[in-house]
Every structure is written in structure tokens, then in C-alpha cells.
């Protein structure tokens, strides 16, 4: 992405740096000034009639009357509302396939599975979801490493905001008993421990198998950073003694990410679909030292364990169903529980997840929260600031403030109104989306016939298939294309 992008005529005023002889294309990159009617900053009060200045892909100023450099592009849209991008705290979409058929696979990375031209990312861009934490699906015990990406770019490197965002850990796997699943989890950590102890023992016995295995796996165990051993760190309830005797480069690559998790150097996205799993999952996290780096991804009646979650101090990503419905066994009537309300009451930080495959409905979820009594500021934060912080990207995403990534949505209205649309998207200071040029919007939203569809009959020269007569033009009600 090296050139400036197309713009709607009359909609965007551009002051391109065409006078600057030195690489006109580069000069415009990541440098833009956006003047809108209202800025919902998500960092303090909204700013009316304000300007967002972005230099080198970073926001440098958000204020009324802020000025960009003389050669910056200018978007002049006082009719629009600026908003930080929505942040999807957890998603298993956009990949070639969401699951690998391996029970314990911390060595996998979604980087090898993410499909940059997936329709999912296109849709995210259209809906203003500007950061997505892509995580493996739930068909595993320990899944691969996730990655936070932007919905824009032709390669995974272009898209990446944060590699290795965390390991997927699954406490309740669909179609499997909870007992077996938790057993699988415990066994995974047990096997890590056995592996490490064997390395230490082999070292004591003078065996060289670990080094040869490393060479076989294509790693260089003799590289300087791999040669060092280090005592086991972290808060796990178990420790492998004398681990410092083993060069880290000799730890099996299939186990190494799990060791990092246990040592507190990786995050875990711990998935639970019920209250009972929450308790077990938190126990596993505590025993193995990654509780402090855990984000619970919950569904079903997991909210019933809200007290335990609050006690453990971990944030949660809420499942798509915000209103939990169960049947009262005595009266036979239904009881509704508004799940975000429970977590708010318990002071647990929560982020929202989109409802369904393609609606990218973070705004809808946030609006629903407002409907059920959560203050607007908190509801908006649950789909912007909070997920950004949960992903440990709070310094880069989630609000419009100086120093943060130059990501801005230009909305036609209030971010929570059903009629609002994303008009423009600026990513890292570059205009990457313009709704008026979005062909698919015309097809999906505006009901424009797709070019390759069968020709339609307007009724003009149509012959009635039953009477065989030509239809009366006056009978069309005088309405014609």
C-alpha cells in the first residue's frame, strides 16, 4: 500500500503533496488531518467540531482546531462523527479453517492459517472492526497461538498488529465430557513437566539427545541466545529443578510455547461454556502459573461463576448471547439474566463479542448493553478500550488520543444508532475504505442487482405467460426505472 487511495468526489477534500518532489506517494502515507463534526474520543469528553491529526501512522493531536502539517491530506467532513475502531477481543474466523486435529498444539500459529482475502476481513472493515484477535477454535485442549490483526492488507505481515497474542486453552470442548477435557488439559501440563525433567536428567546423565533433536527440528541449539539455560520462572505450583542446566534452545519446540505460558510470558484465552468449567479452568490456570495472564472467553451459564471470576481477578470476553434465558423448574416460566449486568455488578472487566458470522455486530452488542441499563460510556468501552486493554494494546488501540495508532472510523451518526453507517476508515493514517466506492455495499445493502445476475423483467415488453398477450404499460402503475 504505497499510493494514496481513491476518494469520493466532493466528499473528501484532499491537499495532496504534489508540489513536494521527493516521493509524492510516500509523503502522504500515514499523514492525515480529519476534521469532523464530533469526535467520540473514548478518552474523556466528546469533542465537537474537532480535528484529528495523524503523522507517520500515529495520532499526534485530537482537539478543536488542531492543525496537521502543511503537506498532510485533509478530510473535511463536519457532517460525520469520528470514532476509534471497534476491537474484537476474540474471533475464530478469517482462517482457512478454525481448528487443527491435534489435541495439544501450542506450537501452531494462526499466522499460517489466516486468509487475508477472506470475506470476513472485508466485512470487518466495512463494519469498522479495526482490530481482531484471531484465535483457534475450541476443538482442542491447548490450541495454537493467536494474533491481533487489522482487516486490511494483502499479507499476514501487513495485517499484523500483535503477533503471538496468546494461546488458546479450552476448558469445555463441544461434544466432549468436561471431565475428559479437563483431564486433557492437566495432562498437557504434566507432559511438559515430564519433558523438562527428562531434559534435566539427560543433562545430568550426559546424554545429548535433546541437542540432536533440536538439530533434527531445524533449530540451531548452538546460537548464542539458545545456548543459555535459565531457572524456571513463573507462579506455577510446580517447578522443575535445575532447569538452568538445560540450554533453552534444547526444549522441544512442541513444548516450548507451553513453557512460556507457564513462565508467565504468554497470555491464555481460556474458553469455558459453563460455570462448572470456569472453576476447573481457573484451577488449571492457577496451578500452572498463568492465571495472571488469563482472559476468560465465556458462554452459556458461565456467568453463574462470576464470584469466582471476580475473585480470580481475570477479565472476560462475553459470548454472543447477552441475555441468558433459563426455565424456572417450579413455575415453568422463563427467567432472563442480563450477563454484562452481572459482571458489572461484580466489577469484572468485560469485553463484548460479535453475535454472528458476518454482521460484525459489536455496535449492536454495545447498544444492547445500553438498553439494559449499562452506562453508555461503559458499553462503548466494552467494544473498544476494554478489549484493547485485555489484548495489552491499550497504548495503541481503543481510543482517539495522541500517541495511539492512527485508526479512525468516520461514521454517519451516533456509533450506537441503527441507522449509522461507516463512511470512511482510516488505518495507520491511510484512508483504506470509502463506502461510496464499496461495490458490495451496493449489492448487499442497496439492493443493486449483481452484474452477472439473470436479466430482469421490468414489465415493459413483457408478455403475460398465461394470456400470451403483451402487458398493458399503463398497468404498471406508471412507475418505471
Amino acid at each position, binding site marked *: 500500500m504505497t499510493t494514496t487511495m481513491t476518494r469520493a468526489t466532493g466528499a473528501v477534500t484532499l491537499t495532496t503533496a504534489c508540489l513536494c518532489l521527493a516521493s509524492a506517494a510516500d509523503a502522504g502515507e500515514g499523514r492525515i488531518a480529519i476534521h469532523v463534526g464530533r469526535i467520540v474520543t473514548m478518552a474523556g469528553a466528546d469533542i465537537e467540531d474537532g480535528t484529528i491529526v495523524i503523522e507517520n501512522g500515529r495520532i499526534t493531536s485530537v482537539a478543536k482546531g488542531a492543525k496537521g502539517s502543511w503537506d498532510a491530506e485533509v478530510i473535511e467532513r463536519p457532517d460525520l462523527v469520528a470514532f476509534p475502531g471497534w476491537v474484537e477481543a476474540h474471533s475464530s474466523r478469517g482462517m482457512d479453517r478454525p481448528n487443527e486435529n491435534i489435541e495439544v498444539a501450542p506450537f501452531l500459529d494462526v499466522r499460517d492459517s489466516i486468509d487475508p482475502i477472506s470475506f470476513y476481513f472485508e466485512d470487518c472493515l466495512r463494519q469498522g472492526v479495526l482490530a481482531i484477535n484471531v484465535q483457534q477454535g475450541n476443538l482442542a485442549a491447548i490450541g495454537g497461538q493467536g494474533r491481533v490483526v487489522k482487516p486490511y492488507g494483502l499479507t499476514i505481515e501487513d495485517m499484523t498488529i500483535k503477533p503471538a497474542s496468546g494461546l488458546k486453552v479450552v476448558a469445555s470442548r463441544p461434544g466432549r465430557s468436561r471431565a475428559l477435557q479437563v483431564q486433557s488439559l492437566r495432562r498437557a501440563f504434566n507432559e511438559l513437566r515430564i519433558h523438562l525433567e527428562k531434559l534435566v536428567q539427560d543433562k545430568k546423565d550426559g546424554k545429548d539427545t535433546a541437542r540432536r533433536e533440536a538439530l533434527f527440528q531445524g533449530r540451531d541449539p548452538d546460537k548464542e541466545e539458545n545456548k543459555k539455560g535459565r531457572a524456571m520462572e513463573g507462579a506455577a505450583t510446580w517447578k522443575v529443578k535445575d532447569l538452568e542446566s538445560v540450554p533453552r534452545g534444547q526444549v522441544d519446540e512442541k513444548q516450548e510455547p507451553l513453557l512460556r505460558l507457564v513462565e508467565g510470558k504468554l497470555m491464555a484465552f481460556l474458553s469455558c461454556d459453563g460455570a462448572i468449567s470456569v472453576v476447573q479452568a481457573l484451577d488449571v490456570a492457577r496451578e500452572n502459573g498463568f492465571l495472571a495472564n488469563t482472559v476468560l472467553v465465556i458462554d452459556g451459564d458461565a456467568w453463574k461463576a462470576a464470584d469466582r471470576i471476580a475473585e480470580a481477578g481475570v477479565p472476560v470476553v462475553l459470548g454472543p448471547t447477552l441475555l441468558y434465558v433459563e426455565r424456572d423448574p417450579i413455575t415453568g416460566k422463563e427467567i432472563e439474566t442480563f450477563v454484562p449486568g*452481572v459482571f458489572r455488578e461484580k466489577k469484572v472487566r468485560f469485553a463484548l463479542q460479535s453475535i454472528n458470522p458476518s454482521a460484525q455486530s459489536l455496535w449492536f452488542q454495545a447498544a444492547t448493553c445500553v*438498553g439494559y*441499563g449499562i452506562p453508555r460510556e461503559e458499553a462503548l468501552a466494552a467494544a473498544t478500550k476494554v478489549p484493547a486493554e485485555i489484548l495489552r494494546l491499550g497504548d495503541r488501540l481503543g481510543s482517539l488520543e495522541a500517541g495511539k495508532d492512527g485508526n479512525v472510523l468516520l461514521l454517519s451518526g451516533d456509533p*450506537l444508532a441503527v441507522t449509522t453507517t461507516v463512511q470512511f476508515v482510516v488505518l495507520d493514517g491511510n484512508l483504506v475504505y470509502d463506502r461510496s466506492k464499496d461495490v458490495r455495499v451496493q449489492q448487499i*445493502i442497496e*439492493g443493486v442487482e449483481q452484474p452477472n445476475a439473470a436479466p430482469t423483467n421490468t414489465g415493459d415488453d413483457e408478455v403475460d405467460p398465461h394470456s400470451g398477450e403483451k402487458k398493458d404499460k399503463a398497468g404498471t402503475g406508471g*412507475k418505471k426505472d
Partner: protein
Amino acid sequence: MIAFLTPFLALAAIQTQEPEARAWTIQAERVYTGTGRNMEKALVLVRGGQVSAVTANADEEKERTEDVLRVYAVTAGLVDAGVRVTNWTSVEQSNEVTPNLRVADALDPFALEWDRLLRTGVTTVLASPLDRNVIGGLSVVLKTAGPESIAARTVKADAVLRGSMGGDPSAGNHPAFGRPTDFYSRRPTTRMGVEWEWRKAFFDTALGHNESDPGRATLVAALQGKLPIFIQAWTTQDIRTAVFLREEVQTRPEFAAAGMNTPRFVIDAAAEAWKEPQLLARSRTAVILPPFPAAGRTRENAFMAWNVAKVLKDLGVPVALSSHGSADMEQRLSVQAGYAMAGGLTFEEALAAVTSIPAMLLGVQDRVGTIEVGKDADLVLWSGEPFQPGARVVGTIVDGVLRYEGWTAVQGATAER
């Protein structure tokens, strides 16, 4: 006394006595009457199950009652003309044309579905048999709350003759492979077969070939226009088939001779109506839209554009929206109205599409669909601007009885009234 909607009152016990229609004074920031006369900071007074006054004069002390509800907005109860009864026992599949069967016989007033609809602000529904038959039978217009009896909740019995074009009536049927073991080998297996069954039923009626058929009287009434015909047709080809069928009845001499050439059609679930809106405008056929699809296409692989309501409305086609009976957060009727606004309808038009227009299509507009003095006191109380996902139904009144109280069952929510 101000009713602050006591927690768990509604859930207290199932054996409570039937509540009475109380005299309510509803104070609202916005009263959307649906008649074009909207008011701010107004009162709606309810007496004896009916709306007794709608007034902007908040000082009408003599009219006010002890029981006051304070809310942000009030609209008329929502009307959903496309509720699907998912119960398989609602359709008699041993015959594919069963015009005389009543879906009311298969409904259960104790079913939780009614409560769910009530919680989403839907107070009146058209309940139709499952679309497994070509002509499925007679649908009924019901209130979603009231005495626990279908008869007592009925607004209009035998309101609509219900049938279907397209794939639903033929799905799963098959030719007899060797030995016919059940009726699935006799029912139609294609769209052609379904359409033929419609025409056969209509022609047999006009020509008097079905004198002994118990469904004949119903078909006669339908062809004479005394009973509207609601036809499910998702795709553009099925919509065309339905429109052409009606035009055939209107123009063929057999029907004119029998005095049966004035049927009234409503196309239900017309997802692809946006493709040939002129066709519907020309034939003056009203449309009920299915829920907007979350991901691409709807049932029958039909493609529903988000501006379909707007396109039809601009051509003068009456459009009603439907949730198909779903109370899911993103599919409920109030949200459908919001989606239609996103597709270009104004708030007033969206309101009409979920209240007065479906009431008109069902022929119950003298009782429900707007807030007017003398109409049923079916009211929805909203926490914010109706149809925005950020507003919710905090109360539903049916026939003057506060049947649902929104804040009660939700933990963690704070209410300000």
C-alpha cells in the same frame, strides 16, 4: 401510588389470579401514536382495557389515576403478521390442500413462545400453520397475553387463508420407489407441482368440481375476496408465480362467471421483492418481509437487500415487517423495524410497518395498531427511542393489563423512570 414495577412480582407464582385491567396513567417523554400525531411529555390514559385519552396536557388532574407509569416512550403494541408456529402438529400433511383446517386447534396458550413475543413488545400476532402444505388452512389473529385460553385471546378467528409457493411444501417428498408406503410419495416434489395444486384448488372451486370437499366454502370466500390469502414466497420466481396466479383468477372467464375473481393476496416472506417491485405495485399486492438476514441469504437461498422495505414503500406497496416469531435479541420485531430504518425507512414508516400496516392487512385495524381513544390498550413502554437496539421494552400492556415488566428479571440493570 406510583408503580415502580416491583422486582419479581411477575415471577412470584404461577397460580396468581388473572390480573385485572387497571386504570393506568402513562407519562411519557414521547408518545408515538402512529396516527401522525406524536406528542412530547404527554399522557396516555387507560380505562377498562382501552385507551381513554391521549393528551399533551399533563395537568389533567381529574383524569389521572393512582397508577402511574413513567417511561421514555410509548407506542402501540407491535403486530407481527408472520409468526410461524413451529409445531409439526399444526399442519395436516396427509393432504396438501387443507383450506378448512384451523391452526387455532393446534395452538397452546401456555406455550412460552407467547411470553417471549410479549417481552419483545409484540402484542398481536397472526399465527399460521407450518408451511408444509400448499394450502395449509386458516390462520388466527391472537393477542400474545391474556387469559390462558386461545379462544379468549383471539382477536379474529379464521382471519386468513394460509398457503405457500416454492420449496417448503415439496421438500422431503419423493416419488414412490416401487411401493408407496406413505403420503410423501403423493405430495408434490417440485415448484411446478405446488403451483399446480394452487391452480387445481382454484379452478375446481370456480367450476364446482369440489362440491363435496369440506374446504370448498373457505376457497369460495377466498376467491371472492372475503378472506385474504397469505402466500409464502421467498424468491422472485415464487413471488411472480403468486402474482400471476392472482392475475389469472382476475382475468379468466371461469372465475368471472362464478363471481370468484376478486381474491386478495398478501405475499409473505417476500425477501426478493426488491428485484421486481413494479410487479407488486402493479398488482396492488401487499408484502410481509421476513427477518433481515444476519449473514447474506435468507431461506430458500433468497437474497434480501436491506433497502427492500424502502423500495416497495416508494412504489406504494404496503409493507409489514416480521420476526417470524423469534424473540432473539437480533431478530425480534423491534430490531427488524430498526433494520428497515437502516435500509431507508423513516421512523414513522418503520413504526407503521410493525403496527398499523400489519393490523390493516389482518383486518383488525379498528382494534389495534395505533394509540387512539377507544382502541385496545395494547401499549409498549420503551426505555429510549423505539427500534434502536439501545432502547428496550420495559413494559408491555395488553388490553389494559401490564403483562410484562422489563426491569424485574434482569440483574445488574439500573432503571430510571
